[in-house]
């Protein structure tokens, strides 16, 4: 990994702290990865976003459990119950209001009109929304990278075909594809995510292709060619690592966008279908209850915003970390 240029037991900070004579401190050669990591960890917004996202993910998956693993929240999201106090939320985070200190209560997020626990419902919606966004992010990134790399590296006919194909896909509305999925599969969230990512990869393909077009002309690629490296090796060992920044940033922003796309489609009735639920579907179902039970409207919206906002901030931090130009202060 790293090797100090001058052998010395103390690191950079140690040398500074002791304010020792000239040659006390060492100059550590840092790899690209280390620099990126340290820049990323210094980005306050990204760290806050990472914390908030981790909190949401952990609470969503541990509370009601997932797959067959039970969680610590014992109420089920689909079973109805008795309405307590008109179903208003029992969560109390402000000690001086209502006077009984911080408490969670039986239904922290309240209940809907048929007595389902809204905390469990929201957590279930968050799980589905996160899953959809993650699948779209991973799959679209993979497809976009492969297509962009092939068309950018080989050029010629493969480039023409792939690029015209992306043009074609760009004109197809997401809505109609979602409607087909809804019709055929009853809006299974996983399938919906897979099919949506088949349409969303195009923008990343264009980005990666652009990077590859300029990388192809670089000397180190020529050198690799001269040494007899195979195309596969050049693409994966020499060129892809050089545009990993673009890809990771774009993947993050795709995830943020996917959260909102899923919510919008579900809101219009073409996304996730009941009995499954998602944050968008929850808002859609309960938007008319805004005046009578506002909490049914607030919670899912709040979770969408927290997730999208923190992912956006993480993406911004990653962009700054991968692109040293961005952090340069204007003269």
């Amino acid at each position, binding site marked *: 990994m790293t090797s100090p240029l001058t052998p010395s037991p103390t690191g950079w900070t140690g040398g500074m702290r002791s304010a020792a004579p000239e040659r006390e401190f060492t100059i550590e050669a840092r790899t690209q990865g280390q620099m990126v990591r340290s820049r990323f960890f210094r980005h306050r917004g990204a760290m806050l976003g990472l914390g908030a996202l981790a909190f949401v993910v952990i609470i969503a998956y541990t509370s009601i459990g997932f797959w067959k693993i039970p969680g610590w929240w014992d109420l089920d999201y689909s079973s109805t119950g008795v309405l307590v106090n008109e179903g208003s939320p029992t969560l109390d985070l402000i000690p001086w209001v209502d006077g009984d200190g911080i408490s969670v209560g039986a239904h922290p997020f309240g209940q809907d009109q048929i007595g389902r626990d809204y905390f469990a419902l929201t957590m279930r919606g968050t799980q589905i929304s996160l899953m959809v966004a993650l699948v779209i992010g991973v799959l679209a990134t993979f497809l976009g990278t492969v297509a962009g790399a092939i068309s950018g590296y080989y050029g010629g006919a493969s480039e023409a075909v792939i690029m015209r194909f992306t043009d074609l896909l760009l*004109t197809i509305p997401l809505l109609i594809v979602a409607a087909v999925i809804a019709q055929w599969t009853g809006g299974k969230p996983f399938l919906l995510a897979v099919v949506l990512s088949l349409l969303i990869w195009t923008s990343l393909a264009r980005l990666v292709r652009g990077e590859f077009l300029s990388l192809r002309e670089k000397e180190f690629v020529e050198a690799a060619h001269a040494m007899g490296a195979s195309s596969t090796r050049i693409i994966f060992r020499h060129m892809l690592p050089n545009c990993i920044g673009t890809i990771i940033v774009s993947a993050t922003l795709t995830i943020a966008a996917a959260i909102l796309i899923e919510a919008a489609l579900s809101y219009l009735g073409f996304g996730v279908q009941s009995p499954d639920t998602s944050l968008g579907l929850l808002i859609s179902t309960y938007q008319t209850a805004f005046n009578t039970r506002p909490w049914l409207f607030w919670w899912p919206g709040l979770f*969408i915003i927290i997730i999208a906002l923190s992912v956006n901030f993480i993406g911004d931090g990653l962009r700054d970390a991968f692109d040293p130009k961005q952090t340069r202060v204007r003269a």
Partner: protein
Amino acid sequence: MAAYIIRRVLASLLILLAATFLMFTLVSVSGDPLAEFVNVTDPDQKALLIQARTEALNLDEPFIAQYFLWLGGAVGCLVPGMDCDLGVNLNNQPVTALLADAFPTTLQLVLAATVLSIVLGVAIGIISAIRQYSAFDYTITFAAFLFFSLPIFWVAVLLKEFGAIRINNWLAEPAVTIPVAFVMGAFSALFFSAIIGGSRKRRALVGLAAGAGGVAVFILLVASGWFSNPGMGPGLVTLGALAGAVGATLLFTNLENRRVLFISLGTAIVGVAVAYSATPLLTDPSWLTLFGLGALATAIGVAIAVIFGDIDRAVAIRASVVTSVIVGLLVFMDKTISSFAAYSEAVNGRPIATIGSKTPNFEGTFWETTLDTMTHLALPTIAIMLISFAGYSRYSRASMLEVMNADYVRTARAKGLTERTVVLRHAFRNAMIPIVTLAALDFGAVIGGAIITETVFGWKGMGVLFTTAVNRFDTNQIMGVFILTAVAVLIFNLIADISYAVLDPRIRLT
């Protein structure tokens, strides 16, 4: 260039052909347009209904034949001189007529919102790039990320509640209440301290003063009954016009340049004079009258600039034109707001609308109908703006930062040019190249309608046309919306590419 354009157009036509086929396939597998007859109990009637629809939509033909029958009619829309026939929808209405109804509605909705968000987003993005890492920059960055992350339907419901219903309630009986006064004060404090910039102490002082001032003005306005009969009056309009003249001068040169300053001020006064001497014409004007008066005021302004401009003639003409536009907008706003009382009366005291694009059966003067359109546009425009504003401010900030680091900007500074010239002449123009491209793509995309905004606010535009069709598996209606949208996207993509080459001579289209 010509060869490039021809090649692109041909490629676009092929893509369009493939896209229509793909869409047609998707729509036909998405569901059965006859399915909604399942609940018809009378078997004879059911058979009749099914037969009628089958005939109208050629459902008994094989799939490929259906596609080519549709294509045969649709080709006519792209070739001049042929009949444009997009078929009929499930209710036997011709799709072309539906599109002709929906298209202007969508344009009305998205055009204002898009233009406003471009102007605001670019302006704010550039300011935050120039003041990089200032409090203003951080606030705008955070706000942009927040707006990016907002689900628009969620915002729309909130807007309806807080931006319309509660404001209407308040407007019914304007009174100074603590929350409203607080919001007003905070708003004015934030606005002015953001504009003024500088050290933290300076911003805090300005913010405090502006907050107090905002609350005071608000109390004054409520006390004088301004909210039930608002307006600006000749005094405020003249003041605004003079401020606009100073602003226009600042935009093109500096206030030291007395000649241009006085010419702009003169133009402002002439503009106000023209507007108020034409009062009888303005009680219920047409757009033509308005544009005529505007052109007259602008012409006089330009004439002043030409006569007195001397060596600053070119700058003076530009400043004059901008001043005239500002004065025109001010007068327009004044006249529109002045009709508020009458309008509010006419719509039962609920001026800000939550549904639809206009009050049904509403008749009034030009100003009242304009106000009616505006109050209907207000909420959806805000909803669309919040989201696209964020994108534009981020992009123009990034683009401006990159340009400000470029060598030619350093050269411009080294030559001793003023900071305004460096920013506006050298940096801004180049920073706008990618934004123009982005805007072109955006315009292409919004033609398809702001589906969610239209749904929530009940506008019968392209987006709603599309979703209702998808819900009923209405092939012809879907395809009609789709072909219009796809053509718009392809045309604006082409415009984006060409504009890039036109604006940046280093790029050659081959």
